[in-house]
């Protein structure tokens, strides 16, 4: 009885073994550029309150993410690996000198997560993968104590695309992002969308 259940477990885990981080990265990389909508829920433990925001995003692999908030505030944020500067930051100078180290690290982390760049992430996180190509889950736990004091863990889940992202802070705040209506963009569409989106 025990042996048969063990065998069953082994059989179950076989596809998971075949589906490793590299395969996942390759699967995510199959769609270079993506557009879609997001719903972001930030839970503030201190106030026991949830801040919900919605909007649309455009993700250009290895280049940048354009994050456009629609409610409750209207904001367009652009994250690139070089800096996490927001575009409308140019309007009120001084208030948005964002080329600082921590901001930049956060932007880099977000892009690595969306890229599924496990090699870069592996240096800083212990990564565990579960599920298969159609429904996968990844958990990241910081290796450094210094980071764990701020960030407990990161959970990613999805199939063809990344569908949910959950960041759990050490002070019990959480950030949940759910992606929807995702569709691939071809190169032409990227530029036209850019001009359409530009103010």
């Amino acid at each position: 009885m025990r042996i048969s259940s063990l065998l069953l477990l082994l059989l179950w885990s076989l596809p998971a073994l075949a589906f490793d981080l590299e395969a996942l990265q390759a699967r995510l990389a199959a769609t270079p550029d993506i557009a879609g909508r997001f719903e972001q829920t930030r839970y503030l433990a201190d106030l026991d309150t949830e801040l919900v925001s919605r909007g649309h995003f455009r993700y250009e692999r290895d280049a940048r993410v354009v994050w456009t908030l629609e409610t409750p505030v209207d904001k367009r944020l652009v994250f690139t690996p070089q800096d996490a500067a927001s575009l409308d930051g140019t309007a009120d100078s001084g208030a948005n000198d964002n080329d600082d180290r921590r901001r930049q690290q956060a932007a880099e982390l977000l892009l690595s997560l969306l890229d599924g760049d496990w090699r870069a992430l592996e240096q800083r996180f212990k990564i565990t993968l579960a599920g298969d190509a159609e429904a996968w889950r990844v958990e990241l736990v910081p290796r450094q104590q210094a980071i764990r004091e701020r960030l407990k863990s990161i959970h990613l889940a999805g199939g063809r695309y990344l569908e949910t992202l959950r960041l759990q802070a050490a002070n019990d705040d959480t950030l949940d992002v759910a992606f929807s209506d995702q569709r691939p963009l071809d190169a032409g569409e990227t530029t036209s969308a850019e001009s359409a989106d530009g103010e």
Partner: protein
Amino acid sequence: MASEPHRRLAWLCSRPLAWLWAAILAGCALLLAWQLRDGLPSDTRLTALLPEDRQAPLIERASAQLGQTFENRFVLLLAADDLPEASAALAERLNELPDLARLDWRDVDLADADPSKTLGAYRYRLLTPDLKASIDADGGATLVEAALERLFSPLGSPQPVRDPFGLLERWLNAQDGGRIEAWQGLLTVRDDTGTRRALLIGQLAGSPYALPTQQALSEQLAAFERAHPQAELLHSGLIFHAAAGARQARHEITTIGLGAFTGLIAILLVVFRSPRTLAALLLPLAGGLLFALPLTLALFGRLHLLTLAFGASLIGVAIDYALHLQSDRAIRGPRFRLRPLLPGLALGLASSLVAYLAQALTPLPGLRQMAIFAALGLTGAWLCVVLWLPRLRLPAHPATARLAELLWRVTTPRRRLSPWVALAGVAVMLAIVAGRFEVDDSLRLLNPSSPQRLAEERQVQSLLGSDTGSHYLLVRADDEAALLERLDALGDALDTRIAAGLAIDYDNLAERVPPPAEQQANLERVRRLYDEPLETLVTRAGLPPETLTRARATLDEVPLLRVADWLAMPAGERDRRLWLGHSDAEDGEQAGTLAATLVLSGVDAPGEIAALQRLAAGDDNVEYVDRVARLSALLGELRRHIAGWVAAALAGLMLVLAWRYRARAWRVAAPALGALLGVLTLFAITGTALNVFSQLGMLLVLGIGLDAGIFSAEHARRPATWLAITLSTLTSVLAFGLLAFSATPALHHLGLTCLIGLTLVWLLVPWVRPADATTRQESAHD
């Protein structure tokens, strides 16, 4: 009687004294063996040569504190194709170093202490200039947008109650100021061309001068460069300069030192044609070293490498006594007696000792050590010559006498030197020296680093935007509030000048710890910000109304950030170098005065220095300190000191010489003084500036030149004496003159002076020799 000093020195020829001397040397050998049980305690710091700044102990303390960060730290900048992989490989190698206290190279290494924990309570009193300006302009309404972004950006980590406007984060970012960026988990910097380099910062547990540490570091770096041939490394830190200096010194000791020694052996073999004589001649050298080494070690605890190099060059001087004795004996054969030589030998030793001991009176610890080592070595060698050499039976080869005759015939001038020609020559040379003489006291002399290495150092410093702490303002005040006010005002004054085009940067403690009044004003500003703008933020973001009351409650009791609090925090660690705290009586200040430094960087033009001097000039409590200029001034002072002491010693010697030689005293002094004048003239003509090291060389020329003059006067018309003088200048040229080829500036200048000066001594002696065939002393007492 005055005319028979050698009679009174006769007791030196007694047998028991020879045995006593042997016993003393045996004791020295035992002492040395015990001292060397753990290897030679050596020191390679060139700065150990410099005097302590006794006039201004507070400045000395400030300089030492600022220099320490630079001394114990090293920085590597790495450019490679696969930067993460290469950096990891390099870090792995560096982590194997035994003396490494810590290594920072990953982005998390610098983020490991969360400053908000310690600094959080003070945040409402700390505002960046931008924030201050925004709040002063319209109460801070423009800050609401940025606060909203923090709340809704997926990257933000908002704290609506403790810090809805992210004051602390902004403040920390403003302090961060440096050019270091996190990139792929690394710490990196980018230059103007966009080349990205990984940054690795090592902290040494021990001294950067420790040879094993230097060796381990260069081995690991060499191994890394072999494994990554395409990688490009930039180095910064004292350890690299110290290692290069030590490597160069070792290299030169083996090449120049060995060259001089081989030349010396060859010459002595050619002249005396006997290995036994050679061994006997080298015996005083060994005796001198055996006497000087343990006693110097006992006096100073450790031996400076330069002392060893310079002291070993004593070869040239110490062997002189043996040469005189042996030349005389080789030519006179069985008729040889020591007694007639004794006055000359004693005066020779006395003149050299005076020249060396003059250096021992200087305030430079390194120089004092060299002088004492040299004086002890000379005394030891002299005693070996006088007590032992006459008792050794040595073969006298006829070739020596023939050689002496030949040398005498070839080099003796046919005509006499007309005194008018000589005086005219001296006058012309004096005029040239007076007209074009230059001195150089720059610190470059002490710096053995190559220009490439110095350029690399500057490149790293500018890429990192860091400083070496060599220019600073020393600021004093009676209490902390006043000191911070003063620093703050200086910061503003510097900002005004920088805005007007002064191309410098500065590091000011008052930017991290604002004066109490400023902190109070900042708190008032935050209260304004928490009024209407906070309400707008809470409403627009849809935060619960209690956010407002709770956030405002945090402003009720905000502690004042004091310097001691800040310095105790991990974030304030970097600023500890700037804080001197209360001065005490030892600092030569009024007890209880507080002091701090404001470090300047990028100060390299004379105009910038003048601007900073003007800035400090109006205020007694502010002092502009240029460490390099200050050390240069000390070097100059030292040079004048040595010159003064040597002049005094010379005056004293002239009295002694006048007492013994009467009217012929000028003949004794002429070779030495003439050679010195010649050196100065040549320097003036070629535009070579005189520095402290060429002056040390002149001291040697003086000592050896006086020896030559004394022997020439004592035993004027004897080929044996002339042979001995020739050999002695030749060996000295080999020992010191060859240092002219050293790449270490200090040794080069010393060597060049000796090379020219000793040659001139040799050329001058035949022209000023006393005219009579045999001296009065010899005919009277032989």
